[in-house]
């Protein structure tokens, strides 16, 4: 009897490979041809933020031991920018300096140390200009994104209301608050790295490089190198953390590949940790102003959310923090969002851990806490009074929404009723104790674009499930195996999952927490198609016991075909008819249901903090998160995803910060000691719970996304708890002890 692994606690199928070091990450690959000697590249980055390079002395580097090539704007590699993909310029193609830490040269040598040492011998002379760095002072422009992204501003007004200002003015209670958060970085453990190898006539390129979208990585490299997309294969089975920083391809792969093509040798390029902070994108610095207008009993009449996010002149991430927060979370007759960019000479931005929703929810959910205080209503009750059953300004309903249950279950698990609304009312020894809560909301829809999955059934009763999504450490590989085992009704150990290779059918982008909800229906369809193929073999193969039977005579269940009084496993049937395997590749895409509903995952966070009475440091001591995410595929990975998300939220609230020097455009932190994320000692046991509420619309399994949900709202829950502990409202992240003294 095979029990489906779906929804159970399943160890990662690649866990052993990871903890034993057998798993190969990008920089671990040797040259595939042992006779072709690998060369090593090292980057040189700019030390000014704006201007141009007037001269570069590379003579010493060129003559340094082991050096094979030095590339710069004066010895170009001929890369082309790809409009609409990542940064809007190609490095080394001109002398312009667009931000501090921009790639301005690359040294290739026999060893990585020789390349690094030679890079240190290059001297650069600049014509320097004053960089534009101030989020507060530079001009604002609409935060218009690429086609398909929602408009940057939108207003919904009730009949007879002239403006959002009029709606606010007519409200009994108005809360207005302005929030600031600094630049933040993904700081994935694995630094960005690539090995680029061409075939002997230099027509086919293989890249080994961590990617959240393997096919996009290959396509971007091809475009930048001026070769057809079919000429590039990208292999990325293990990714040492994405968090958005491996969505858009940076120029490392194209640079290494261009040098490899010129030198006719495999080239490996590994970014130094400090280079990851500028060559790879970060999350914009963001200022936000929220205005809430409500009745005395806390019913919202108006919500206004204005955001100003830094946008680098080099591109690329469009920050719209209000779209999936203030525009959808609460019922309000009057709503206005206005999202703007401030163009700056800073390194590129990118998606990062609930890119817009985490900052947006910090502002909105902090403002809601302020409204709870202004109206004297319990924060949970306030949210229930403003519960939305349809997206504001539309009649559109959600596919499935049980957020109210999250609030109630979470409040009970956490012991919310013990909270005292009055700040500073609980003291335990040297510590002020406070409780806070906030809502989590994150898009839960399937990706709109078509993706593929392939299922192969083999004569040894095993199956291979393939779809070139990425596993950034989330457990996507295990999800593929679980889904395959569930759909085929066979034990998990007989399923081999494959992903992270553009030679496989293109899979779901590992973005927007949509990997699972998008992949699951594709695997289901592929499994059904492979079973149909198996039935065809059964009724058409002369040696099959079912030769000549009708399709309807056969049923498939738990790895076996049944019919006409006999049963046979698929492996046995394939062996009997002399076939190694059957397979099916399908393309899956959401249908009209995609636009008939809105899809979000929801949750409620409850947090207890302690703030030292003497020295002010805030410490999170308890945290409960209850989520509504549809069907769970892997309980263990789901818990890990939510725990990880909440930890990001705690870091967002208390630690993460990379100050930008306004006069130089230099970032203060360039390593993982100075750029602080939480350590284990900062994190208590996190209580995570999910509702058993499969989504009836999104896919047959009912699985929505979970990954980034825990990050949304958790920072506000921490900040709200700090207010409850201290009576101090900090709207300028991170909430460090100096702001609580």
């Amino acid at each position, binding site marked *: 009897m095979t029990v489906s692994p779906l929804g159970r606690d399943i160890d990662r199928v690649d866990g052993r490979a990871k903890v034993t070091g057998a798993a190969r990450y990008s920089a671990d690959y040797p040259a595939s041809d042992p006779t072709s000697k690998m060369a090593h590249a090292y980057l040189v980055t700019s030390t000014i933020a704006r201007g141009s390079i007037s001269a570069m002395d590379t003579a010493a580097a060129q003559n340094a031991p082991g050096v094979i090539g030095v590339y710069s704007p004066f010895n170009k590699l001929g890369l082309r920018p790809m409009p609409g993909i990542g940064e809007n310029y190609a490095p080394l193609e001109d002398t312009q300096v667009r931000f501090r830490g921009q790639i301005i040269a690359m040294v290739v040598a026999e060893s990585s140390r020789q390349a690094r040492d030679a890079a*240190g011998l290059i001297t650069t002379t600049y014509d320097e200009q004053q960089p534009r760095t101030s989020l507060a002072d530079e001009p604002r422009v609409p935060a218009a994104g690429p086609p398909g992204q929602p408009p940057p501003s939108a207003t919904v007004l009730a009949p007879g209301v002239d403006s959002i200002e009029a709606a606010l003015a007519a409200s009994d209670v108005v809360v207005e608050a302005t929030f600031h958060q600094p630049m933040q970085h993904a700081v994935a453990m694995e630094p960005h790295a690539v090995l680029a190898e061409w075939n002997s006539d230099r027509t086919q390129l293989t890249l080994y490089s961590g990617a959240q979208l393997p096919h996009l990585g290959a396509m971007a490299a091809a475009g930048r190198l001026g070769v057809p997309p079919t000429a590039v294969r990208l292999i990325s089975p293990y990714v040492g953390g994405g968090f958005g920083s491996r969505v858009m391809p940076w120029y490392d792969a194209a640079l290494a590949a261009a040098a490899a093509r010129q030198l006719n040798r495999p080239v490996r390029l590994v970014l130094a940790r400090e280079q990851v902070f500028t060559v790879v994108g970060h999350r914009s610095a963001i200022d936000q102003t929220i205005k809430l207008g409500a009745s005395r009993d806390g019913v919202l009449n108006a919500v206004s959310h204005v955001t100003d996010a830094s946008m680098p002149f080099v591109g690329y991430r469009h920050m719209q923090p209000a779209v999936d927060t203030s525009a959808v979370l609460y019922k309000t007759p009057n709503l206005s969002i206005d999202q703007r960019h401030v163009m700056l000479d800073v390194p590129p931005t990118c998606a990062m851990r609930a890119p817009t929703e985490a900052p947006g929810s910090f502002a909105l959910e902090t403002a809601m806490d302020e409204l709870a205080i202004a109206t004297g209503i319990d924060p949970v009750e306030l949210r229930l009074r403003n519960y939305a059953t349809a997206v504001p300004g539309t009649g559109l309903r959600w596919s499935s929404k049980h957020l109210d249950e999250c609030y109630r279950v979470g409040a009970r698990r956490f012991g919310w009723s013990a909270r005292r609304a009055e700040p500073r009312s609980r003291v335990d020894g040297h510590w002020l104790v406070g409780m806070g809560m906030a809502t989590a909301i994150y898009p839960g829809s399937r990706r709109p674009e078509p993706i593929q999955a392939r299922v192969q059934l083999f004569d040894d009763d095993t199956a291979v499930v393939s779809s070139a999504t990425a596993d950034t450490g989330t457990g996507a590989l295990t999800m593929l195996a679980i889904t395959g085992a569930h759909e085929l009704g066979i034990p998990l150990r007989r399923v081999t999952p494959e992903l992270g290779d553009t030679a496989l059918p293109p899979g779901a982008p590992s973005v927007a927490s949509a990997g699972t909800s998008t992949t699951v229906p594709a695997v289901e369809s592929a499994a059904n198609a492979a079973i149909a193929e198996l039935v065809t073999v059964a009724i058409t193969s002369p040696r099959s016991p079912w030769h000549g039977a009708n399709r309807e005579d056969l049923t498939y269940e738990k790895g076996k075909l049944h019919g006409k009084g006999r049963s046979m496993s698929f492996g046995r049937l394939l062996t009997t008819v002399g076939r190694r395997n059957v397979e099916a590749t399908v393309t899956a895409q959401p249908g009209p249901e995609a636009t008939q509903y809105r899809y979000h995952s929801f949750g409620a966070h409850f947090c207890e903090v302690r703030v030292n009475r003497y020295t*002010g440091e805030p410490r999170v001591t308890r945290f409960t998160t209850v989520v509504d995410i549809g069907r769970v595929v892997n309980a263990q990975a789901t818990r890990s995803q939510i725990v990880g998300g909440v930890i990001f939220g705690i870091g967002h609230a208390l630690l993460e910060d990379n100050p930008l020097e306004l006069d*130089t455009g*230099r970032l203060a932190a360039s390593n993982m000691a100075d750029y*602080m994320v939480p*350590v284990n*000692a900062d994190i208590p046991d996190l209580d995570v719970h999910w509702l058993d509420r499969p989504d009836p619309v999104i896919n047959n399994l009912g699985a929505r996304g979970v990954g980034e949900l825990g990050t949304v709202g958790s920072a506000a829950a921490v900040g709200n708890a700090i207010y409850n502990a201290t009576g101090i409202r900090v709207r300028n992240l991170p909430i460090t*002890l*100096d702001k609580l003294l």
Partner: protein
Amino acid sequence: MRAYTFTQPRSVREALAHADAGAAFLAGGTTLVDLMKLDVMAPTRVVDINRLPLRGIKLDRDGLHIGALERMSDVAADRNVRRDYPMIAQALELSASAQLRNMASIGGNLLQRTRCGYFRDVTTGCNKREPGSGCPAMTGFNRTHAILGTSDACVATHPSDLAVALVALGTDVHLATAQGTRTVPLDTFYALPGSTPHVENVLRPGELVTGITVPRSMWAPHSVYLKIRDRQSYEFALASAAVAVEWRGRTINQARIAVGGVGTTPWRLPVVERALAGQLATADTFEAAVRTAADGARPLAHNAFKSALLRRTLVRAFTVLAQSR
């Protein structure tokens, strides 16, 4: 990292003979190797002293003797240290990470370089790294920088937790050169930056730290090291306090106090010590005693909070110590 000559002497004499002008001694390597990778330090010769017999954690009538090559984690785990000098064990355990403590030596700890981001970034100026090249921390990002003992040339904090505890306890440092040995009080070992921030201590060229002696005292067994920072591990102090008290009932007979994270060197507070001496251990006593603790502070744009934080850290340390008496 630049090419260098590597030697592994077996005796102190041999090591000192190798200590030429461009040489650096290598013990745990947690500072030196890090800074060599960043090109902040570029010795032409690295003298690996790990084979030298500078070991041992011994307690005798004079006090606690620790060899310069003892690892931080071993000293922190030593039974005598934990019993008679608790603040030393606490300062060590609150430093760095377990991995670093397993490697880093006591001698090296006393000589570790500042964590100032400009010192570590060779694309910026830094008077400590390159005399005369300026101090961008003055106008740059300086939340973690010093408020006491600073000069117009340098505002970098001294990074060591251990040194703060040792200074409070009146520790001696034992030094050796090819010409002979000498002993220097740790309190006078460190140099204020003044106009020469690259000179951080009184070490002579080629001089080697061979060990330390922490004297016995009535106050060392009643001591605490309190370290305040944004996260609970793997971060340098925003402020720290090493406080040792000799009690007479509920009265403080005498106290020894040093603070970290706020000064360019481990910072003694004799005025606060005097204010506590002979006083009853009450909240009022503590508040009164710390009133002048940050006098003379020269705050910068982002670190002005450290004056208040320093006072509160002291009051908290006094309170912790009084409650555990």
